[in-house]
């Protein structure tokens, strides 16, 4: 039984169609990489799956654990185990990382029928997860992502993922802006979360990340459609010949708009 089944998904922003018929099936435990040039719709797909209202779904369906994902609010998706690691994590001055994450975890635990964690248990849990992400513990008391370096923000995303333990993790260009050391740490954090019941969608422009997070499947997106799918060797092929080798160029109109 597939965890996620996307059928002929169309989505627009304003009057521009970005996703033009995506089909994708993800089974429990699988890691799927979504690659593609700028403007191909990779990030849009990630955001649509997380429920960003900026995008309108104009056609197709998304079934997640036999439920209609598109009918669910972003918070309900999160409570059902969907997690998006943001390409650009949002700074929220005035809300401490600790308060935020505790509120998130306890809402999700409640939805799963688990008891809420008290302050002590929560602190023990996050300390352990922070250690494995090699994160500075003082980040807990700082406002969410505020004044964090690019690397700290990305680590914070994966750290949140480790605490919230999703069933479907969507990583949106988690590698962008990371130096090689940070990339290794983040990838190790992600790999530690690979599990038979947990699936991942790894959105990336470059093959580099996939040396560290080795996918089961690679899909190439162009102009809002999956134009090629294969195993991990497809990523290597792209590394050699580039997107142009597949006859794909940046969608310049979109790039110009971004």
């Amino acid at each position: 039984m597939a965890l996620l089944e996307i059928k002929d998904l169309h989505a627009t922003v304003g009057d521009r169609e970005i996703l033009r018929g995506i089909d994708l099936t993800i089974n429990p435990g699988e890691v799927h990489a979504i690659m593609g040039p700028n403007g191909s719709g990779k990030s849009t797909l990630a955001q649509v799956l997380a429920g960003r209202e900026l995008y309108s779904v104009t056609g197709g369906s998304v079934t997640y654990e036999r439920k209609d994902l598109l009918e669910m609010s972003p918070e309900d998706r999160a409570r059902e185990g969907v997690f998006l690691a943001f390409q650009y994590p949002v700074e929220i001055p005035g809300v401490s990382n600790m308060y935020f994450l505790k509120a998130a975890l306890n809402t999700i635990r409640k939805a799963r029928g688990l008891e809420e964690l008290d302050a002590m248990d929560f602190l023990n849990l996050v300390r352990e997860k922070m250690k494995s992400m090699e994160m500075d513990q003082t980040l807990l008391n700082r406002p969410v992502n505020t004044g964090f370096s690019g690397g700290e923000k990305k680590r914070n995303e994966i750290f949140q993922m480790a605490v919230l333990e999703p069933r479907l993790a969507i990583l949106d260009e988690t590698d962008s802006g990371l130096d090689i050391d940070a990339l290794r740490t983040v990838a190790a954090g992600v790999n530690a979360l690979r599990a038979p019941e947990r699936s991942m969608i790894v959105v990336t422009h470059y093959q580099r990340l996939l040396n560290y997070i080795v996918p089961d499947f690679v899909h190439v997106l162009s102009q809002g459609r999956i134009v090629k799918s294969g195993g991990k060797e497809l990523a290597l092929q792209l590394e050699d010949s580039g997107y142009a080798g597949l006859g794909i160029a940046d969608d310049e109109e979109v790039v110009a708009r971004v």
Partner: protein
Amino acid sequence: MTAISEQTGAWLEQFTKRQAAEPWLQRLRNAAFQRFVELGFPTTHNEEWRFTNVAPIARTSFTVGRASVTSSKYQVGLAAAEPHLAKHASFHHSAFVALNTAFLDEVSVLRIPRNTVVEEPIEITYDSGRTGGVPHATHPRTLVLVGSGSQCTIVETYKGAGQYLTNAVTEIVAGDGAVIDHYKVQQESLTAWHVATMNATLGRSANFTSHSISLGASLARNDANATLSRGTEATLNGLYIVTGAQHVDNHTAIDHAMPHATSHELYKGILDGKASAVFNGKIIVRKDAQKTDSKQTNKNLVLSDEAVINTKPELQIFADDVRCTHGATIGQLDSEMMFYLRSRGIGVREARSLLIYAFAQDIVDRVRVQSLRDSLERVLFEKFHEHAD
């Protein structure tokens, strides 16, 4: 003129019925009442009152009320007030200050001797409580005299029940090097009118922080004025939260009369429903006030389409070697922040309260009186919870 006499007629009747005070005080009352009659209540043609219509107050016949007030061990007799009373809050330009002075009776006079550190906050609570019946007017008057080199915290709270007018005046005199942390918490009944003026005259190198928290009243007008001396440091913080059809008007005036003084002003407002707010920040830098450093910021979070905010800086700079900056922002809840919180399982209602709380957080953090900070945090979390979804 007819309109003014109609308005002042009821006040005149009450004024003449009052028991005479000591001669110096009676002279002051008479002069103030005379001035009130000349000025009449301001209309929206008056630039200072352009966005705040006090016609409902002018039209109402109030009975004389008296707010119950807490006392403190630093309270002294009225005699100590004579050299200062009405010297700092002038009634010549304000009908409300004139009316307060005309009806002043009990004055809370607090005196902190020189070089005295008062650790515990000094709390003065004016309670206009009672419901039903004819609306009453109270004229709370506070005079705070802080000796040179002394340090204290003053918490003024205004509350009540039903429909009434609070017309308060507070005068603060800080000696050289005095350190004052002043809080004014306005939590009047939602059917009350609240007009208040605070005037602070600050000595050399005095350090004065004012926190104006405005939560209640259907109409509230707060004037906060500070006159700075050489090397004075003044901080004016403000937080106003209005919902429903509430209206709040904050007018501040900082007078840099002498060189080397610093002023920092941060007022933040949260507006919901059909509420309206005004911020007018006047900063005067006199000709001799070189090396003035002044910063003014007003930020507003507007939660509904129908709420209205008018914000205006008013800088009058007559010196040439100064640094003055000002800025105002009006914004809504950030949709990216909302999505980020929701994508982590936090519901719309809680995400909203979190972001509202976050907006006000720097003002709340500056509140150094723990009990007050706790109650503010509670207000922030609870006030907006019922509106969401």
